Each structure stands twice: as structure tokens, then as C-alpha cells.
């Protein structure tokens, strides 16, 4: 592999851009393909499928074997609410290999003392999420119980097609949330993508147990079900 290609792969990863490295096994051909340059590529169909599946693959084309190294952005968990559950979730998410960011405009909650090992942003979600470029490789968990904070995050997560959107709160709380989202013009299919009450039903009681149930649900959404765009295709 040429050194420049490796450097470009690493830059794309840092910038959360999907890229595919196409390598012929005889060493004759090697190129980087991005979703922008995909259309003109001779292996367009295989590369497109590999990007959608998020999986590297070996393919044959006109008698030559090519390996497609698929690099999609690492999965990131954005937590709205610097609360007790978030404190428990942060180390678990890191162990499981996820990037995690916590957003909470309440400066008394969003302190580095409470969250020594995770990025905490003391801003409103509507300010911070757009520049963060949440995408379909992002999971959003709303933990504040406060519609002023949670709702704008949910709206943006739905528009960004985040692969996992969860919101804490009882069925009654969620019922009111659904009414507010409907009033904002979100349809049934959109609203159905919000997992509420949040977390797998493992009978979780403590904040730590709830964090386990949420992390389990995120992994389920990531691994077991195809991404929404795959279903669409």
C-alpha cells in the first residue's frame, strides 16, 4: 500500500467519512473510493454493497481478485444528560469500543469532576449536535427527562437517521413526547424508531443496570438488524 493511501485512510477515519480501499491481490491495483467517486468505479456495485453492509469483502472482477477494505466511521454514542446513568454508561461504552460524548446544558451536571474520562459538553443539544454531524453511525440516548433538552436532540436524531435513538421515561412520559413530536410533523414510522422506555427489558433497577440494558440495546440495533438504509435498498 502506498504511504499516501494509508494517510488518507487515517484522515477519513478521523473525519468520520466512509471510504473503501480497493486492492487487487496481485498488488497491481490499489485505489481509494469514496461515496463521491463511487459512480465511475468499475466495481461500483460491489463497493456500494460493501459500504452499505459496513463490511470488508473479497470480490472477483474479470478474473482478478480484489479485496475491499471498508472503513466506515466508528460507532459513537451521544448521551443527552450528564446524569447518574451516563456516569455508569461512560466506562462501559469505552470498554465495548464505542466513542462517547455527553451533552447537557446544565453546568452543575456537566462537570469534569463527575465525568473524568469522557468528553462532556455543557451546551444545548440544538447548538452542539449540528456541528457534531450526527449520522447513521451515531446512537443517541436521551436521559434528562426534560423536554426542553431531550426533544430537540430527538428531532435531530430522527432527521439524521441515527441507527439507535432511545429516550428515558415511562410509557406515560413517552405518550406526551409522541404528541409533541406529532405536533412538530413527525410521522408514525419516525416516532416508532424511538426506543422508549429505553433499554432492553432485563428488569434493570439501578443506574448501572439501566446502563447495561441501554448498551445491550445499542449493540442489538447495531449488530442484529440491518441499518435503515440497507432495508431501503
Amino acid at each position, binding site marked *: 500500500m502506498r504511504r499516501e493511501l494509508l494517510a488518507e485512510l487515517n484522515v477519513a477515519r478521523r473525519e468520520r467519512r466512509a471510504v473503501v480501499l480497493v486492492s487487487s491481490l496481485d498488488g497491481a491495483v490499489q485505489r481509494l473510493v469514496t461515496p463521491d467517486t463511487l459512480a465511475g468505479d468499475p466495481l461500483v456495485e460491489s463497493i456500494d454493497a460493501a459500504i452499505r453492509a459496513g463490511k470488508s469483502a473479497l470480490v472477483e472482477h474479470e478474473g482478478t481478485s480484489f479485496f475491499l477494505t471498508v472503513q466506515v466511521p*466508528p460507532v459513537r454514542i451521544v448521551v443527552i444528560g450528564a446524569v447518574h446513568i451516563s456516569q455508569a454508561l461512560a466506562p462501559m461504552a469505552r470498554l465495548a469500543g464505542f466513542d462517547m460524548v455527553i451533552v447537557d446544558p446544565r453546568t452543575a451536571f456537566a462537570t469534569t469532576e463527575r465525568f473524568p474520562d469522557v468528553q462532556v459538553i455543557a451546551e444545548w443539544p440544538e447548538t452542539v449536535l449540528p456541528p457534531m454531524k450526527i449520522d447513521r453511525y451515531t446512537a443517541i440516548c436521551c436521559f434528562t427527562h426534560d423536554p426542553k433538552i431531550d426533544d430537540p436532540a430527538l428531532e435531530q436524531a430522527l432527521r439524521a437517521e441515527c441507527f439507535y435513538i432511545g429516550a428515558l421515561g415511562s410509557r406515560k412520559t413517552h405518550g406526551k413526547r409522541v404528541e409533541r413530536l406529532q405536533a412538530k410533523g413527525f410521522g408514525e414510522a419516525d416516532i416508532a424508531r424511538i426506543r422508549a422506555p429505553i433499554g432492553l427489558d432485563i428488569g434493570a433497577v439501578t443506574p448501572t443496570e439501566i446502563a447495561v440494558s441501554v448498551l445491550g440495546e445499542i449493540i442489538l440495533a447495531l449488530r442484529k438488524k440491518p441499518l435503515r438504509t440497507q432495508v431501503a435498498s
Partner: protein
Amino acid sequence: MLASDDDILGQAEAWVTAGKGVALATVIETWGSAPRPVGSHLAIAEDGHFLGSVSGGCVEGDVVTEAMDCISDGKPRVLEFGVADETAWRAGLSCGGRIRVYVERIG
């Protein structure tokens, strides 16, 4: 903790920048119960340091040896590893799976 692709490809670039010969091994095909999925990387520096994995540790030694030859001659190669007892003196996978690994020089 397991090294992520960030660490592996980032480390490979850092080694190259530091002037070291580097090879990258990638799992390109698996059959049966292979320990690491297709696309898994192992980066190897000429001084013997490596990061990442292509198996559960079963065949890394062999891959590193081949990677050294690859760094010397610059030729990419495809290695295949199967069940341990069939290949007696070679490294094998105790899990019963088979894997193919592509090894290429960087630079």
C-alpha cells in the same frame, strides 16, 4: 483492551513516518469458526513490533515472519491457515476454521 483499527492503522502510519519498514496483514477470507472477522488488521514493523490481530493469537507468529520477508522484497502475498493438526509443524487454528491473510508492504 483490544486495539482498534484507529490504533492499528494510525500506528502503521507512525512507524512509516519514523522511517521503519512496515507491512500490513489483513484477513481477506474466512471459513468456519474463524476468530477474527474479514477486514481485521495486523500491522508489523521491521523491528518486530506489531499491533492488532488476524486470529486469536494462533498464527500471528507465522504472519509476522512472512511480513518480514514482505518488507524485504516488497511483494504482496496471500497466506492460508487451516486446522492445526493437518499442518503439523506449521501454525494452525485450533478453532477448526480456515483463514486467508493478505500481507502487503506499506510505502
